[in-house]
C-alpha cells in the first residue's frame, strides 16, 4: 500500500467539532483513488493532512510504507500537489512559475515547456499568469504539480473550471500517469470523471468513509436496478418504470410483459451520481 490511513481524526485549532473522525482507507500503488463527498465534508482537509500542510492529526497515516510523521524533505521530493485554487505568482509567467518551483527539487525534473504543452498552454507566453483565465491558471497549477515527476500525485478538483475538451485532456493525462506507475489521490465533484477515471472511489460522509469500492461495484451495490418500458395502448404510447429489487414492482413488470404490447425496454444504468446521492443523502436524513 502506498497510502494507509487508520482511525484518522482531525479538528481545526479553535473549532468545536472534528472535521474527520475515524477515517480509514488505503491506496495501492498505481491506483487512481477518487475521494468523493459533499461540500465541507473534509476532502481538502484530508489532502492537506496527507501533504503535511496541516499537522497535528490523531490516528495513523503511513505513506510509502513509513509513518508520515517521521518523514522529512524526502517525502516532499516524491509527491506532487495540485491545489483547488490557482495559487500562483500572478506577476510571473507560467514558465517562470514552473521553473522556479522546479529548483527546490534535488531529483530529476521535467522541463516546464513539455508540461505546459501537455496541458495545452502556450510555452513561450510572455504574459504574467495573472492575465490568464481561471481554467488556464488551474492548468498551470496542474503542470506545476508535475515538475518533480511525483510518485504520489494529489489532485484537488483538477477539472473544476475546465471546458469539456480540457477536462478530457486532464482525464487522459491522469490516466497516462497512473499507467506509468504514479499513484493518484483525486478529489472531485465530477461524478462522470470519477466513474471513468478512478480504479476505486471512497465516499467521505460525516468524517468517515461511508462507502468504498470500484465505481462498478458501488453502482451495482447502491443504485436501484430499474427498467423502463414503453408500451402501445390503442393510439397512445405510454411509459412506465419498474424497480427490479421490489417484489411488487417486479411482479407488475412481468404481468405487463405478458398482457400488453411492449414497444421498447430499457434498463436504467445506475450512475455514480445516484450512488453519491444515496450514500450521502441517507446520512443527512439521519
Amino acid at each position, binding site marked *: 500500500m502506498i497510502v494507509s490511513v487508520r482511525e484518522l481524526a482531525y479538528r481545526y485549532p479553535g473549532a468545536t467539532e472534528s472535521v474527520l473522525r475515524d477515517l480509514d482507507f488505503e491506496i495501492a500503488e498505481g491506483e487512481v483513488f477518487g475521494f468523493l463527498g459533499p461540500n465541507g465534508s473534509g476532502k481538502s482537509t484530508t489532502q*492537506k493532512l496527507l501533504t503535511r*500542510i496541516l499537522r497535528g492529526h490523531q490516528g495513523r497515516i503511513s505513506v510509502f510504507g513509513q509513518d508520515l510523521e517521521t518523514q522529512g524533505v524526502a517525502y516532499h*521530493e516524491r509527491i506532487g500537489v495540485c491545489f483547488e485554487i490557482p495559487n500562483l505568482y500572478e506577476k510571473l509567467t507560467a514558465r517562470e512559475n514552473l521553473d522556479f*518551483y522546479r529548483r*527546490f*527539487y534535488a531529483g530529476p525534473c521535467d522541463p516546464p515547456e513539455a508540461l505546459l504543452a501537455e496541458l495545452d498552454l502556450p510555452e513561450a507566453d510572455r504574459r504574467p499568469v495573472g492575465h490568464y483565465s481561471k481554467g488556464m491558471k488551474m492548468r498551470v497549477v496542474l503542470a506545476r504539480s508535475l515538475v518533480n515527476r511525483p510518485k504520489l500525485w494529489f489532485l484537488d478538483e483538477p477539472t473544476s473550471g475546465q471546458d469539456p475538451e480540457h477536462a478530457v485532456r486532464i482525464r487522459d493525462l491522469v490516466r497516462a500517469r497512473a499507467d506509468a506507475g504514479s499513484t493518484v489521490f483525486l478529489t472531485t465533484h465530477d461524478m462522470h470523471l470519477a466513474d471513468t477515471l478512478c480504479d476505486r472511489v471512497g465516499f467521505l460522509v460525516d468524517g468517515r468513509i461511508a462507502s468504498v469500492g470500484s465505481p462498478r461495484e458501488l453502482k451495482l451495490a447502491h443504485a436501484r436496478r430499474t427498467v423502463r418500458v414503453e408500451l402501445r395502448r390503442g393510439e397512445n404510447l405510454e411509459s412506465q418504470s419498474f424497480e427490479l429489487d421490489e417484489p411488487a414492482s417486479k411482479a407488475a413488470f412481468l404481468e405487463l410483459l405478458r398482457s400488453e404490447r411492449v414497444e421498447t425496454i430499457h434498463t436504467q444504468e445506475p450512475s455514480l451520481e445516484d450512488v453519491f446521492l444515496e450514500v450521502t443523502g441517507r446520512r443527512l436524513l439521519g
Partner: protein
Amino acid sequence: MIRRVLAATRLVLLVQARGYFPHTFALFVGMVVGVLLFVVPEGIAQLILPVFLVTEPGMLGLMAVAAHRYLELGSASVSALHVSPLRSGEYLVALLSASALLGTAAGVVTFAAVAGVDGRLVGLTLVLFAFAFLSGLLGFALSLRYPDFPRFLLGSIPAMVVWQLPLLAAFDLAPAAVVVWLPSAAGILALAELCRGDLSLPATAGWVLAGGAWAGAAFVLVQRLYARRLRSGWELA
C-alpha cells in the same frame, strides 16, 4: 539546503521586482540619496547619513518582508512552497536575505558616495546585513500578528519607533545606557560610529557579534512562531 535557499531568494527578488516593491529599487534609492548627500553641506550630510543607513535596510526592509508575506498570503502561493522540499526555515532565511541584500547594497552605495571608498566598507557591509536581517525578522514577527498590510502598518508604528530609539543615543540626545538593551542598538550605534569614522576593528567585530547574536536568537524564535502558525493550517490554502 543551500540550493533551496538560493532558489527561494531568487524567487523572492523576482516576485518583488515584478510587484514593484519599493525595496527592490533600494540600490537606485541608495544612489539617489548618495547624490543628494553629496551636494548638500557636509554638516547635514553627516547628520542624514546614519539616519538613512538605519531606515533603508531597517525600516524599509521590515516593511518589504511583511509586504511580501501578505502578497503570498493573498495569492496562497506560499502553500505551494510548503508542499515542495523547501522547509519553512529555509523560506524565512531566503525572504530575510533577499531584503537584507538589497538594503545592504543601498547602504553601501550611499556610504561610498558620501564618505568615499575605504576599509570601513567591509565592516559596514557586515553590520548592515546583520541589522537588516534582524529588522526583517521584526517585520515578519509583527506580520504574524496582523491579518493585512494596512493593519500591520498601523499596528507596527510603536514597535518601529522603539526600534529606532538608539538613533537618539547615536546623536548624543540620550544616554547609551538607556537604549543599549534594544536588539537594534548594536546595529544602529555601530552604523553611527562608522559614519563618524572612529570605529576600530575590534569594536566593529564586537558590534557584529552582538547584532549577529540578536539576529540568531530572534531567528530561532520567529521560526518557531512561524512553524507553529503553519501547523495550525490557518493561513495555507
